[in-house]
């Protein structure tokens, strides 16, 4: 079920020299970016096992090759778009501090390299994310990526995914 992103070319366009690579994905009409090093793999959506009494955005747990991992739906968490589950639904498997979490998004677009100069500080308001969890805004020509500090977001008490944040 898993498929890879074939996005080598976009890296070259985005800029040469030093920079960080980001995986771009969409939620509703907005485009987001997360540090590619946190991404373990990208998979299709598989039926989950519901966790009783968990908030709606925690869809449940799935078996990822023998490991049980939680799956969160960012669309529900952020009230973006309508959560539909079909063969096009994408789950980004994140590895944060050794913990593996699946994140459901609308779609994954590409991997881009952003240089320091392309990353602007995030405005105080304007996105559904608390600016505490943002790295900044990345601009590539006309595109604008909202860069999310995914480690911080996923380990935040707001998500309730981890009992204690790794010190």
């Amino acid at each position: 079920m898993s498929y890879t992103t074939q996005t080598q070319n976009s890296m070259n366009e985005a800029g040469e020299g030093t920079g960080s690579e980001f995986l771009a994905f969409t939620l509703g009409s907005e485009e987001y970016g997360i540090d590619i090093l946190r991404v373990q793999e990208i998979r299709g959506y598989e039926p989950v096992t519901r966790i009783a009494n968990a908030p709606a955005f925690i869809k449940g747990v799935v078996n990822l090759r023998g490991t049980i991992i939680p799956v969160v739906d960012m669309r529900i968490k952020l009230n973006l778009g309508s959560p539909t589950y079909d063969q096009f639904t994408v789950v980004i498997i994140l590895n944060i501090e050794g913990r593996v979490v699946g994140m459901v998004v609308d779609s994954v677009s590409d991997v881009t390299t952003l240089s320091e100069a392309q990353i602007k500080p995030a405005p105080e308001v304007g996105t559904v994310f608390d600016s505490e969890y943002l790295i900044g805004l990345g601009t590539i020509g006309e595109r604008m990526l909202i860069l999310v500090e995914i480690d911080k977001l996923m380990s935040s008490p707001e998500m309730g995914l981890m009992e204690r944040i790794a010190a």
Partner: protein
Amino acid sequence: MTIDMSQFYKVFFDEADELLAEKEKLLLALDVSNPDSEDLNAIFRAAHSIKGGAATFGFSDITEVTHMLESLLDRIRKGEMALTHDHVDAFLVAKDILSMQMDGHHHGATVDHDAVANVCQRLKALSQGQVEAAAAETPAAETPVAQAAPADAEPVADADGNFHFRIELPEVPQRDVDALATELGLLGAIQQETLPDKRVAFTLTTSEGKDNIIAICSFVLDPDDLKITSAGGQPAAEPVSASKSEDDLGYGFFEPLEPPKDESSASQPASQPAASAGQSASAAPAENKNYGRRATDKEGGQESSSIRVGVEKVDQLINLVGELVITQAMIEQRIGVLDPILHERLLNSASQLARNTRDLQEAVMSIRMMPMDYVFSRFPRMVRDLAGKLGKKVEFITRGAATELDKGLIERIVDPLTHLVRNSVDHGIEMPEKRRSSGKSETGKLTLSAAHQGGNIVIEVTDDGGGLNRDRILDKARQQGLPVSDTMPDSDVWQLIFAPGFSTAEAVTDVSGRGVGMDVVKRNITAMGGSVDIRSLSGSGTTIAISLPLTLAILDGMSVKVGDEVYILPLGYVVESLQPAAVDVKEIAGQGKVVKVREEYLPLIPLYQIFAIEPRCADPSQGILVILESDGKKAALLVDSLVGQQQVVVKNLESNFRKVAGISGATILGDGGVSLILDVAALLRSSRQLNSDPVFF
């Protein structure tokens, strides 16, 4: 009951080797002027663990050295003594001595008793004469070093950081000499000269160490025949240098050191057809020596019949096999629809695959599971010895020795359990006279038990001794500046004994009393994701319960269905299942429902309500009641239907997620889906709270 302890020797030696290596690493990395207290603690713990293990197996000589080492370390750790280079040196020497003693026990190698005595003396001198030791090197402390471990007088580097070595070769063909000269020339400047007896010697100026030179030369000739000296001034052929180079190679340390062969051609009898009588005489010992070494090699070969593999590798293997089984099940499903006559061969192969997969899975699983007996059987001897030493009478009882536990956990539980058992014998059980005067039987009872409980494995060490002394613990805690108050609940007070360096024993014996044990116990168990619980009643005894999560254990489960969801109930809790008559279910105002089962009223726990599931039948008389029992409490769980009974591999939910109320773990079903395992004990304990308390946030 006699137990062959030797089957566990290997484990001890492996562990001790690891601990020693770790200790050495820490010692070498230690910043003497400003030592990290965590590092000191770690060194101390390593020494303590070796001591504990050695005592278990009755290696009293090792215990002796480690005890002394520990005393000294303890003073440094507590800041009573400043750490100096002398200490570090002494510790390293002691480490070598311990390795030697260990080899002595393991391979039957010779142990240099003088060196052992020397190091003991040195450690003692250091721990007593701390004033002088801190001031300067006392001669008493210096001399033994030179003897204990022939101080490897490292060649002195010149201004450019280069060393000067003189390398004397045995008699070898000119071709080899040329080859060596070229190779060694790569290391630095080389000069060649011919000795009067036609042998060749090199003088090498290089920044490389002696080890590298030996490594290069060993391609061409036996390094033992080499004489390498730092050409700082000493004459080349000094007796010590030969033995020294052997030490460096790890040989000869336990073999009687031969006087260096001034005629090194002895080991090459082939190239000397017409050997004189004197030469053949000197050849004999060299031959013997070679045999001796070959014998040791063989012994090493036998040992490798068991290998130590990282637990994560086994885990990975198990996960992969699990995946394989699921894939195989999928294939079986797909080909099930094929015409058995047309595809006979394919179907045959598939059924063979199924068999092989099953065997593979069983084999892989068996790698990890071991009965607790493996650990428990270590203790009777230790308890007996210890009790004898302390003049106590102890009856040792084990329960649940057949409980299977993951091998990874078994290995890691040994150390903590050893500490706990020793503590119980030393501090818990009182002397016979005292026991008699308090109206107890003279013989104390020490029980070690293991059982599966609520998705955990609980291992308990119970003694019927004096119990913990609350006042003394509180006093001691105050002395150590820990925040305590007189109104603390007992359970919090008991937890204080896990603080590093905490001990209430009056005297430090080599059995226990340093307070390091409990620190280690807690640390090890927390690292395994478990918890330690103490129950104690003054005068009646103490129970220390270690609860370990089932990271990987097989559980007999009963799958039940509620709505569309399937949950697993650990079979151990299930008493029976039944469909009640409508009249047997009674409602108690504000308290939920009860059900009458054979003249007994049991609280009814509707699973659909607790887990907010849309049930197919909310009426108890339509569904199935599973009667569960835990800790003597019974309750009836209402589910829609029973699915079946199966063995499941318990997976930890918390490794990637968090603790979920009412769930003890998860398992992967045959179709690759996940099913949650109910935490029955928690359900019974707090079926009502689960409903009202917000589980999240």
